[in-house]
């Protein structure tokens, strides 16, 4: 499974990813200029968290045992069979926000204006996710979890610093620097 990983050491908190996610995946016009004029204002599926000292874009980890999938009251949240990504079928969502409550990472965002829950689907139908494409410091990368097993110790060490490697579905964000 291919997931997006974010690197704390590279993120400068510029929020370019948020802008382009909202434009590419949430707007009608698909250009920044048009997107900012739309109502409701397009919303991103990831958020840059943190402060001036350190920041990090956070988005769905597509947990293996995803608590949000158990929680959805309507069958709107599903795992895509081909890509393995957890996503919201917008036409089935009733905006009850139960899933918001069941994501330990806080990466399902209520979008009351459009009456559905918004979350990252890793742009699974696109070549590269919009956020990864635009990040000026390459703080966002796509990594294949299967390939992680085969990489060198050095790379693995780097991977351990990646904030979004673990997909165990429990607890809070893992920023484990050991190993």
């Amino acid at each position, binding site marked *: 499974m291919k997931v997006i990983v974010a690197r*704390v*050491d590279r993120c400068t908190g510029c929020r370019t990813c948020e802008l382009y996610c909202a434009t590419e995946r949430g707007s009608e016009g698909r250009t920044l200029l048009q997107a900012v004029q739309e109502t409701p204002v397009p919303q991103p599926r990831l*958020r840059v*968290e*943190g*402060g001036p*000292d*350190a*920041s*990090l874009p*956070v988005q769905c980890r597509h947990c293996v*045992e995803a*608590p949000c999938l*158990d*929680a959805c*009251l*309507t*069958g709107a949240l599903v795992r895509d069979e081909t890509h393995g990504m957890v996503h919201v079928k917008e036409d*089935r969502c*009733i*905006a*009850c*926000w*139960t899933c*918001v*409550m*069941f*994501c*330990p*990472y*806080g*990466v*399902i*965002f*209520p979008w*009351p204006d459009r009456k559905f829950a918004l979350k990252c689907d890793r742009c699974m139908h696109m070549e590269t996710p919009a956020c990864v494409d635009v990040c000026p410091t390459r703080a966002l990368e796509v990594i294949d979890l299967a390939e992680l097993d085969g990489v060198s110790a050095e790379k693995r060490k780097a991977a351990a*610093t990646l*904030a979004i490697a673990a997909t165990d579905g*429990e*607890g*809070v*964000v893992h*920023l484990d*620097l050991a190993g």
Partner: protein
Amino acid sequence: MTVTTYDLVIVGGGAAGLNAAAAARARFPGKRVLLIDGEEEIGYYRTLLPMFMTGVMPEEKLFFQRPDDPVGYETRLGVRALALDREQNHLSLGNGEVVGYERLILAQGGRPILPPMFADRRLPAGSFPVRSLAVARRIKDWLPEHRRIVVLGGGLVGSKTSVFLAMGGCQVTLVEKEPHILPTVLSERTAAPLQRHIANLGIDIRVNTTIDEIETDGNKVTRARLSTGEWLPCETLLIGIGGTPDIGFLADSDLIDGEELVVNPGLQTRDPNIFAIGDAVTIETAEGEHHQPWTWPQAVSQGKRAGDNAFRPSAAPVPRVTRVNAQNISGIPLMILGGPGVGSEVVSRPDPDPGVWREFFMEADRIVGGALVGDIAGAGPLHFRMANGEAVGGEAPQHLQRRTRAFAAESWGRLARARRARRFAMEGERA
């Protein structure tokens, strides 16, 4: 008497039972499984019934499983379990059949509580408990011609049903015996803005009272009397005063303590071959606390775990026991972390926006309950910190603050530390 024996028998095809069946099927493909349910139709979202019966939700979105979906196990529908014989490992069914089991999963859910005036369980035409699809279909057919409605019970089901009815143009009176709506999950202060909001939809809310008599004309509801003596003319009475575990058929099984079907965190009853899940059970934690987490997400999680556990040498515990619940009451988001406990400290913070309110119930330095109204940002991480029993102590005020960012408060210190550590590690590598 011929007895067909199955490896696994599941009683109840609600969220809990069907997830258990699917999980057991996937994990133990060689096992022969039977699922029985008293209802003719199963595989629907019970949570969507209020939307369905008020016409907001079309029927095709109601089901997660269809009768002709290949499931890989046998089913008996419209058949209830009547008695359990643990010595023989036999279950007697309403159609006269007796089935044997090696493992049994009890997932029969709850049945609606009826008010004392219906103690004989005979309901006049126009009065309905809100619980099953069969009844919801009857309500749906009934409502268009009978639009003066009394909803008895201001809990989650009663309140949200009233909202959908009012939005559909019905004339609704909501009757709650406690001083405010949602009494088991919200404090009076937290309920206040919601109650105002609901009243503004045109719902007549009556608190501190109940319905103790119904008048009928030719067995059709015509008016309902409040305990204050006032008569409310109405053609429909919807009953939403909660459910209670449906455990009558287990009376002689020696699995019931008091009124409760108690299981351990691995979802086993005192008979390790018999599991029980969902709205039917009380979970006893290792610390001896009793929980009744009767919600949809719990029914699903417990179902999956019970199916996984069915033939394992030791039962793994359910991932989390939590009662949290979320609702969107016509545009006002509401997150319920847990009801006001006895003796817990209440911390809250007013917000300039009257529609926003956050309140926690604290024991020592842990959050044990509370609610977020109007602003639910950060609710997920907060929920998991609560469920993991993490101490938040001095951080509680931060969580009370209105937040637009998802979880800035939690991650900030952690991120800063991580970044420093990373720099430190790189310097170490260079040296």
